[in-house]
Structures are given as C-alpha cells and as structure tokens.
C-alpha cells in the first residue's frame, strides 16, 4: 500500500506506524496493513522494526565496546580504546558519585543503558523520509527507525530496571524489610493501607516515568521532524536544521537522564530508610 500523494494526516500516520507482525483474528499470523489491523492484533504482535533496529544498535554497541575491551591495556590508549575508556570513565564517575554500595552490575548496566539509548535516539537525526522510502521501495510498508519512539522499547527497559529495583530491595533489606518499607511509612502501622497506596504508587511510578519520559521526548521530537517534512522543501532546512541541532542535546540528555535515574533508583533500593 505505497502512498500516492498522501494527505498530511495520512503521511504522519504512516510515519508513526510500526512494522507489526502478529496474530490477527481474521488474517492469522501476518504483517499488519495499517494501524487499525495492528491494534486489532492486541498483545500478540511484535514490532519488527523496533526489535531489528534496537537489537542491531545493541549489537553495534556490544561490538564496539568489545573491540575496546579486547584492546584494553595499561599503556597509552589509542583509537577505539580511547573512546571506550572515555565512556567507561564517565559512567564510572557518575555511578560512584551516586551509588555508594558495591555492585558489579550497576556500572555495566548504566553503561549499557547510556550507550544503547543514545544510539537508538541517534536514529532520530536520520532524515525522516530516507529509510522509510528506501524500505518502501523494497516492498516493506512501514519502517520506524527510532526504537525509543516506541513505548514498548522504553517500557521494556524500564521494566528491566524495575525488576532490578525489586530484586535489590529484597536482597538488601529482606522480604520483611521491603514489605515494611512499603507499608509502615510514612504514617506508622495504624495507616497500613494508606501507606501501601502511597509507597506503591511511588514504586510503580519509577518505571512508568522512566519509560514515558524517554518515549515522550523522542516521540515528540520525531513528530516535529515529520511536521517539518510536510512543509515546502525551501522552508524545511530553515526549521529542521535548528531542531536537529537542538535534538543533539536532547538525545544525549535523555540517555543520560535514563542512566542517572536508574542509578539513583538502584541506590535507593540499596539504602535503608
């Protein structure tokens, strides 16, 4: 269903639709043709573009840093090792400033989050029409190349962080301690239901806010790129260049925020109140 002279809303709709493969009640396992079919598939569907790009970028990250790690030595660093060490030191410093316990997981986790999210956000700077049209020419109907504009991607990561928060809370404080933290404060044991509600919301809000902050920012950024792309071509550069330059800040900042908040949440999980 290649678009011939789409209306602006069709154009936007097209650019914001993921390539979805899933179980459709009528068509069985198939690629969804349009947002309507994709939403009819419900939970039993997968965004092929999100998965492919994010995994690809994740592998790029792993490969790059593995190259650096293989070359790691105590002498004078060169090339890739220089860059990799720069990142590692930056993340290590951020972790050490915030997280005071001992954990061999937190720092690599933070590094992975920072770099992976940065790479996924970076796809936002690829011209919005380029890749979708290339794929359309190859017969693929939809192609959304920025995984972080898919709420599934950000929520997937934040759920991972959420599981770690619960895991460490229980590991450090014990089940009793963790449950006590959720129920016995801030108002003592006579207000247990109220405390649970308060702390429960606080706990659930962590992954949700983590995911929606990143998703919202990137989704909005992508949407504005798409809107700019709807303008006459002689006006586009006038808006898209400043927006892209501003977005360089946004994509780095969002990756950094996700990383820092992860560290903060995990350090809170390690601390007794």
């Amino acid at each position: 269903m290649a678009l011939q002279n789409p209306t602006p809303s069709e154009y936007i709709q097209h650019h914001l639709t993921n390539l979805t493969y899933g179980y459709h009640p009528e068509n069985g396992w198939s690629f969804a043709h349009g947002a309507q079919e994709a939403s009819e598939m419900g939970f039993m569907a997968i965004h092929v573009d999100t998965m492919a790009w994010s995994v690809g970028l994740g592998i790029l990250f792993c490969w790059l840093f593995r190259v650096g790690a293989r070359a790691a030595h105590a002498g004078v660093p060169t090339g890739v090792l220089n860059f990799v060490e720069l990142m590692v030191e930056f993340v290590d410093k951020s972790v050490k400033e915030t997280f005071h316990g001992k954990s061999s997981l937190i720092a690599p986790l933070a590094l992975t989050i920072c770099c992976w999210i940065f790479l996924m956000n970076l796809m936002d700077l690829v011209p919005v029409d380029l890749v979708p049209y290339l794929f359309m020419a190859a017969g693929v109907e939809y192609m959304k190349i920025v995984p972080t504009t898919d709420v599934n991607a950000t929520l997937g990561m934040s759920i991972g962080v959420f599981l770690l928060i619960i895991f460490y809370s229980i590991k450090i404080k014990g089940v009793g301690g963790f449950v006590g933290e959720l129920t016995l404060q801030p108002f003592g044991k006579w207000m247990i239901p109220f405390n649970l509600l308060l702390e429960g919301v606080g706990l659930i809000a962590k992954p949700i806010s983590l995911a929606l902050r990143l998703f919202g920012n990137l989704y909005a950024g992508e949407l504005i790129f798409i809107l700019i792309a709807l303008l006459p071509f002689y006006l586009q550069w006038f808006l898209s260049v400043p927006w892209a330059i501003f977005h360089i800040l946004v994509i780095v900042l969002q990756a950094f925020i996700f990383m820092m908040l992860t560290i903060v949440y995990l350090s809170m999980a390690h601390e007794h109140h």
Partner: protein
Amino acid sequence: MNLNLTLIGQLIAFTIFVIFCMKYVWPPIAGALAERQKKIAEGLDAADKAARDLASAKSQIEEELKQARTQVTELLEQANKRSSQIVEEAQDKARAEAEKIMASAQAQIAQDAAQARESLRADVAKLAVIGAERVLGATVDQAAHKKLLAELAEEL
C-alpha cells in the same frame, strides 16, 4: 502505540546486552584503567624521587667541588712556602760553604805566610851568620851564639 510482545522482546534484548556488557566489556576496561592509574601513580612517584635524588646529587657535587677548590689552594700555598723554604735553605748552605772555604783559604794563606816568614827568618839568620863569618873570618859557634842569632831572627 500498542503495547505488545515487543515489550518482552526488548526486555530480553536489554537483559542480554547488560549481561554481555557486564561479562565481556566492563571488567577488562575497568581493570586496564585501574592498572594504568596505578602505573601512572608509580611513575609520578618515581619521577618525584628522581628529582629529589638529582637535587641531592647536585648539592653533593657542589660541596665536593668547594672542598676540592679549598684543597687545591691549600696545596698551592704549601708548595709555594716549601719552594721558598728550599731556596732559602740552599742559599744559607751556599753562604756557609762559601764562608767556610774562605776561612780555610785565609787560614791557609796565613799559615803559608807564617811559614814563609819563618823560613825567610832562618835563611836570614843563616845568611847573617855566613856574613859574619866572612866578616870575622872565623866560624861562629852556632851553639855559643845561638841566643844572639835567635834575637836577630826575632828582630827581622
């Protein structure tokens, strides 16, 4: 914006990447960084120590040079003194020798003069006796006029 299996897929991918990073990326790099930090610290320490050693060596050299210089001046002074002493001694010796030679020569001369005078006196006495004999025509008794002769010789 549908929530679907992608969520689970992302969670799994995320987990795998984190584990990979934790196992194969972080430890070597962090290890290398720590090792380099240690090496740099050691290097800086060594540099500090070398600088301190250099400074102490320099001051030692300065000291030794100073010592050597004073030693040299001392030696020079001593040598000068010694040489002038030697010269003086030689002069003294030479002077004494010369005086001695002079004295012995004078003694010799005096002795020779006395001897000559003595022999001359004897000759004169003899000549006087011979003269007297010729005048008197007789032999002068040596023994009888011995006293007279001695007196004569004395007067010459």
